[in-house]
């Protein structure tokens, strides 16, 4: 298990948030938050409701401007870039309330999610190559939506839309995915299958994951390192077993701060 390192070390982690502060008017949503995620790992982000997890995600992927601090991704300071630019660098997020294109079929949703990185405008004026289509079907297969491939995405159930959104994110070949509560709203009997897929995406496709999750069993099982936010500040961080037994984390969740 890794240790906190000196920030000056040359080979920087894939994602590095340094002393980030984000205010909404007088409310401090994130205060002096720092975290880092090494390439190829799965890291968890937990914290009670309103502790600033989703805000942190929004700051990282370019949805909100930040007030103080730095965000580094692949050796580049990205805290002034906007969402699309950051997404093209390979850092993407899924939404807590899923966002899919309801009027398109699942396959079309996949084809529209192909990465725009290293592609030119003229590439859009093709129906999508045979290989792209095959990969779209493979990924739909991977999340278990193959038989629904020609259904309108809007006709899927919430859980299926969530899986589709995950597949769309994979389709765009990200370096790193930020997942906002991937198991929320999914039938409990299917959670194990989903966790397994997250792990396979990490191991087989080499995608680094940062996961917000409320389901403790899932996150302790999935992540190899966990950060815990409370009241917008970084409360604790460490390997799952350490976090599980951390009195401050337990207090935060029971509201006894």
């Amino acid at each position, binding site marked *: 298990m890794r240790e906190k390192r000196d920030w000056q070390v040359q080979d920087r982690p894939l994602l590095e948030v340094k002393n980030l502060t984000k205010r909404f008017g007088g409310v401090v949503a994130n205060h002096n938050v720092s975290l880092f995620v090494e390439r190829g790992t799965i890291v968890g982000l937990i914290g009670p409701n309103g502790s600033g997890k989703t805000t942190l995600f929004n700051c990282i992927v370019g949805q909100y401007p930040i007030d103080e601090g730095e965000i580094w991704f692949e050796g580049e300071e990205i805290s002034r870039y906007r969402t699309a630019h950051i*997404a093209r660098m390979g850092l993407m997020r899924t939404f807590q309330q899923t966002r899919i294109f309801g009027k398109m079929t699942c396959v079309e949703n996949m084809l529209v999610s192909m990465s725009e990185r290293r592609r030119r405008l003229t590439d859009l004026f093709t129906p999508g190559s045979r290989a792209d289509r095959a990969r779209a079907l493979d990924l739909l297969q991977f999340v278990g939506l193959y038989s629904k491939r020609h259904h309108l995405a809007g006709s899927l159930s919430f859980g299926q839309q969530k899986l589709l959104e995950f597949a769309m994110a994979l389709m765009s070949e990200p370096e790193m995915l930020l997942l906002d509560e991937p198991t929320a709203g999914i039938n409990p009997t299917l959670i194990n299958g989903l966790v397994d897929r997250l792990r396979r995406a990490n191991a087989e496709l080499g995608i680094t994951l940062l996961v917000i999750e409320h389901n403790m069993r899932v996150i302790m099982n999935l992540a190899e390192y966990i950060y815990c936010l409370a009241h917008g500040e970084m409360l604790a961080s460490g390997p799952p077993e350490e976090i599980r037994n951390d009195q401050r984390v337990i207090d935060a969740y029971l509201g006894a701060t």
Partner: protein
Amino acid sequence: MNRKMAQLLALAALFGIGLLGPWLAPSYISQFAQLWLFIVLALSWDIMGGQTGYNSFGNIIFFGIGMYVSAVAQVGLVWPVAEYTAAKGGGTEFVFNADQIHAGLALGIPLGGLVAMLAAIVLGALLLGMRGHYFAIATLGLAVATAELAAGWDYIGAGSGMVTPTLPGDMNGPVLFYYLSLGLAIVTILVFAWVYSTRFRLAINAIRDDEDKAEALGHHTTRNKMTAWAISALFTGMAGAIYGNLSGFIDPHDIAFNAEIGVWMILMAILGGKGTLWGPIIGAIVFFISKELFWTYLLGWQRVALGLLIVIIVVFFPEGIMGWVRERWPHLFAPPHLDDEEDDETPAGADEDKEAAHA
């Protein structure tokens, strides 16, 4: 019969009627030429308004630009433009022979389209970083501003307009412009059919359906919007170029930047059904025929009717004729897995996703 075949048949029928038009109804040839141009205008508006979700009130700008650029090019090939416009079309002095007319059109129409496209790229760079309704209102202002500016520019005849080159007596103007219009309409429909078969349609539909998500996926949304508007402007500009010649006279307020035609573009697309290939075509045909039939009986009130029509269509029939057809005969629009092409390559273990079916 699958859908592709049906579309091809419909297209062939449309073009067949178009080719035979001058023989079937020789006295309405100019009106039919207008109809073809209106189909082009409606289709061009729809790629922004219907497919991308960006309602442009300013496409009339490209129509007018195409018209003026073409006229200036046509004249400029032969005569000094400033003197020509100063002479108000020049009566006997500025004559054109058939070769000059043909060369002028061959240069003017594409050039009109290209300059309009350039204008769309410049305006798009300014305006398309902002979201829908800001864009819509900005184009509303720009359309009027352009007309005002054109009306103040002496080179193109300012407020009194300019005359397009007069054809020599032995040329049949109406037939020439009819076939030019028909040709442009055919090319436009085919190009749009092709564009909508590519991933570009998905990319602009994504902007229409959820622009934030398109951003989150890393799309170059502004660039895609600009591309769509540029395509739109290219064809609108060429239609304007032909329309100017068809009318024979260009005036900034009443013809080139005519706000009414700007409204018709929108109305035709919505009437037929936004965001489809056939909607704007059908909308243009229905609108044009009813306009020709009823417009004259309204005696000045037709513009009031135009406003009322917009309100009624937008509020009560926002899906247009195509939407109504879709509701009436849904099987025509069933998801394409009924006539599938790629299902043979079913990956192994496809039944694994049964579990997801319950999710």
